[in-house]
């Protein structure tokens, strides 16, 4: 009798432990992380404690907690729990806009283009464009991120930014945490129409902001009942979209990769008076004191230049390689090494100068992020400062400190579990929780999973680059060498100009190389990045000062 009662109870509790989440039957939305070391926030570590997650919230933290009956217990002995990272600047979940121009459409007027042709689309929202099914989202999540501040794609004023939660399969309106949070601004010029240079872009900013302020004032004047004899003010969606930025009601995230860009963004800020965030920079140093004086928040990129290893003078096997370098080349290599070290030390410099900063992953490969952080820490950035820039600092910047950034009761269940301290060299993230949803991280090296290394790309291929208004075609021949590939490229404009491609690199994701045709005298550097399949490929081609264009090709049998 007692046994039957027990069975019934067990059956009921078993059924109760299944809950409905979004119409899907999941085992449970209650997790009990047991006996973990919790890095609650930068500088606060709680050893051997438990965390209870329920309904997407961190319900409780404590050593004395006991797991409820319906909780899935995660044994986390000797494991570390961190708040899931907040990406201050990302392009995850956004597919790059198609740059194909309709060949039948009338050619835009170079001197008098529409605002859209000039790259001015500040009214654009990415809320409906963001797709959390994109691999970029799962890649970002698997390295510990739970929230991303996503930038729209485009030229000088691509649109408004939005803050998204990196959950799975939620429709975009459920995935958005902050809709149209900031205004994204860049120095990228339009192609073929005004403004076609950076100085043209700066002049355009001055006109746009002033006219946005005027449009707002004119509307207010017109709306006053006492106003007589005033025509209805003409305005546009673009100007209206800029008004919050002019009134300092909306932050302007200005993409400023280098010192000169930071200087120009700050110059515009001084003239136009908007709330500036210096976004996506890799080189503050030259302007550091001015940035500090202006009290601007900096979003430091997680991308670092290609590593230059220091040659140890005691390594005799390497010196034989060095003997072939001339005096001038040696001095140059030293200068490059010093420059590289400066880039790596940028983040620690920001911390030392007490300039508020956050990390942004945009432009960096997710597989490089942890390694780059390690390099920055080795160069002087404290772990605490690094963790702040990954969690509490961006959370504050994005106005979501009450929701994420720390492992505290009441906040969203955005955490990740690492097998040991995250900053240890070989640590691995095992699980990531985003709003209480569990994601196990697959740590298998990607090369085995993809199997593309078996692909034979040798042969002759035709290619087609889509540049607005024209198509550049040509052929390339790929020969397999011992450890890499040799590629010779020709183009149909000057078929006799056959060039050897440089910097050829084949990885599981893509084949990259640089082709420098001599178009009418000066060589143009064309960087290819393509995904190869058995008999076709597609990807992008980048030319400095022009931009990126789609390229596709097929194998010639």
């Amino acid at each position: 009798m007692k046994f039957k009662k027990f069975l019934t109870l067990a059956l009921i509790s078993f059924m109760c432990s299944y809950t409905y989440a979004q119409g899907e039957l999941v085992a449970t939305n209650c997790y009990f992380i047991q006996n973990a070391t919790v890095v609650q926030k930068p500088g606060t570590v709680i050893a051997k404690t438990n965390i209870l997650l329920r309904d997407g919230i961190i319900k409780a933290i404590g050593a004395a907690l006991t797991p409820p009956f319906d909780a899935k217990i995660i044994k986390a002995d000797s494991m570390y729990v961190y708040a899931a990272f907040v990406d201050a600047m990302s392009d995850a979940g956004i597919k790059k806009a198609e740059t194909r121009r309709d060949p039948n459409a009338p050619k835009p007027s170079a001197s008098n283009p529409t605002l859209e042709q000039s790259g001015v689309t500040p009214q654009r929202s990415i809320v409906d464009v963001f797709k959390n099914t994109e691999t970029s989202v799962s890649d970002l999540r698997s390295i510990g991120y739970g929230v991303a501040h996503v930038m729209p794609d485009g030229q000088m004023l691509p649109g408004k930014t939005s803050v998204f939660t990196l959950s799975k399969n939620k429709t975009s309106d459920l995935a958005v945490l902050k809709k149209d949070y900031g205004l994204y601004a860049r120095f990228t010029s339009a192609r073929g129409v005004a403004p076609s240079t950076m100085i043209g872009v700066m002049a355009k900013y001055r006109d746009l902001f002033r006219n946005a302020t005027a449009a707002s004032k004119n509307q207010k004047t017109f709306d006053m009942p006492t106003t007589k004899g005033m025509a209805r003010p003409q305005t546009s969606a673009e100007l209206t979209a800029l008004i919050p930025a002019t009134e300092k009601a909306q932050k302007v995230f200005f993409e400023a990769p280098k010192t000169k860009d930071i200087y120009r963004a700050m110059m515009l800020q001084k003239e136009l008076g908007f709330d500036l965030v210096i976004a996506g920079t890799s080189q503050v140093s030259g302007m550091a004191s001015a940035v500090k004086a202006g009290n601007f928040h900096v979003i430091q990129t997680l991308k670092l230049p290609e590593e230059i290893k220091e040659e140890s003078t005691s390594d005799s096997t390497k010196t034989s390689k060095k003997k072939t370098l001339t005096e001038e080349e040696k001095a140059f290599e030293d200068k490059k090494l010093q420059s590289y070290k400066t880039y790596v030390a940028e983040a620690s410099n920001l911390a030392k100068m007490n300039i508020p900063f956050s990390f942004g992953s945009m432009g960096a490969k997710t597989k490089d992020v942890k390694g780059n952080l390690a390099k920055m820490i080795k160069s002087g950035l404290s772990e605490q400062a690094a963790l702040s820039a990954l969690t509490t600092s961006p959370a504050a910047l994005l106005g979501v400190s009450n929701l994420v950034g720390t492992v505290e009761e009441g906040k969203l269940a955005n955490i990740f579990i690492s097998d040991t301290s995250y900053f240890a060299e070989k640590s691995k993230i095992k699980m990531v929780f985003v709003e209480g949803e569990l994601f196990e991280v697959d740590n298998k090296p990607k090369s085995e999973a993809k199997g593309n290394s078996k692909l034979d790309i040798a042969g002759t291929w035709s290619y087609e680059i889509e540049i607005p208004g024209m198509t550049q075609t040509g052929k390339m021949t790929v020969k397999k060498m011992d450890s890499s590939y040799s590629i010779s490229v020709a183009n149909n404009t000057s078929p006799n100009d056959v060039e050897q491609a440089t910097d050829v690199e084949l990885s599981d994701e893509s084949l990259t190389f640089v082709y420098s045709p001599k178009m009418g005298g000066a060589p143009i550097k064309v960087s290819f990045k393509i995904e190869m399949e058995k008999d076709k490929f597609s990807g992008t081609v980048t030319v400095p000062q022009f931009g990126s264009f789609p390229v596709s090709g097929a194998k010639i049998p």
Partner: protein
Amino acid sequence: MKKINFILTISFIAIITSNIGAQAVGDVLIKNGTLLTITKGIMENTDILIQGGKIKTIAKGIVATPNMKVIDAKGQYVMPGIIDAHSHIALDVVNEATSPITAEVFVGDGLDPYDVGIYQALAGGVTISHAMHGSANAVGGECETIKHRYGVLNPDELRMDGAPRTIKFALGENPIRVHGEGNGIVPNTRMGVEQVFRKGFSEALVYKKEWEDYNKGVTKAIPVYSRRMETLRDILDGKIIIHCHSYRADEILMLMKVLKDFNVKKICFQHVNEGFKVAPELAEFGAHASVFADWWAYKFEVYYSTAYNASILTKNGVVTSINSDSEELIRHLYHEAAKTQRYGSLTDEQALKLITINPAIQLGINDRVGSLEVGKDGDVVIFNKHPLSIYAIPQFTIVDGVVRFDLKNDPKDMRLDIDPEEKMTSTYRERHQHEEDKCMEGVFEFLFESNK
């Protein structure tokens, strides 16, 4: 050896980024040199003291105070820093070639303090250059007068504070080719170029009235703000000096007529290869001329030229200067000036004026630079021989009392910012081979981009 080089490089970078950049002015005493003052004759065996970036004393036997930097210029020649009135160094962008009038852009927004060309200009004794917009448009962008304070990383510190505003105009084949032939819009002929100016100025007058009406309360709505119209209006109000790229005599006369109609007086013609044909007219208008010593026939409109141009203009009373419009030519402007002694028999003083006080007048900065006078900026260059001698080599170039070029002691590689992924060792970078003058830089990409 590698280690010493390494240490030198580090210490250089440390010095550059910490000391010189922060210290915009300096003190230096130059002793025993022959001073070529330009405006007050030649002073042999005289000392010149620069303090706080300004020339404090010119006299014999100045006593150095302890900790003062002293340069012994015995047997050497000291002259004011050379000024180049037409240059495109230290700029990231030269041409916004999208419209026949682009008065709204400002090349000063695109200053590049990292350009090693600034250092190379210092090696040629040039302390100030006029960083200009290109000649793709009839009305180009505003230009910037910069001081060659090489080593500063903040672009603001390159600017010459207080220098008058200048703007680039262009006549002739360049705007015609870019806009008429390139985009099928006005101007497609020299007649069209004239109408671009007249139309632009007329529209600026309308714009001026619109804003005056609003400011007086006649109208209630704030008028549309247009940076382009603002700048054109400022030209009409006499606030900006026009520097106009020009070659042919007919178009030079045309522009003077247009300016007379709109009551604009401040103009300096640039290149002005046929200036010798209209020298009296230029002098009567009060227009200035900034020319090449001997560079012509690279375009049809530059066919009819002469090496005597600078001399003829000078002798007709036109304030004339010799410029480079090139990061190569800027390194030996003193030799360019010397050519006027062979072609035109200009005196030493007349020739040296072409690269010192005259370009200073053309840029409106002659109250501060262009000659060695007490109170002027401490911009000085020391030559081993007389600057007009073919054997002259600059030894020291000083800007605001700071030694920015030291022939004997500067490290070999003076680049400020190295891209760690850079492949080339040499300081010669891939530059586009410009077909003619640097004034058309950037336009080829624009035409290629939009014209298919």
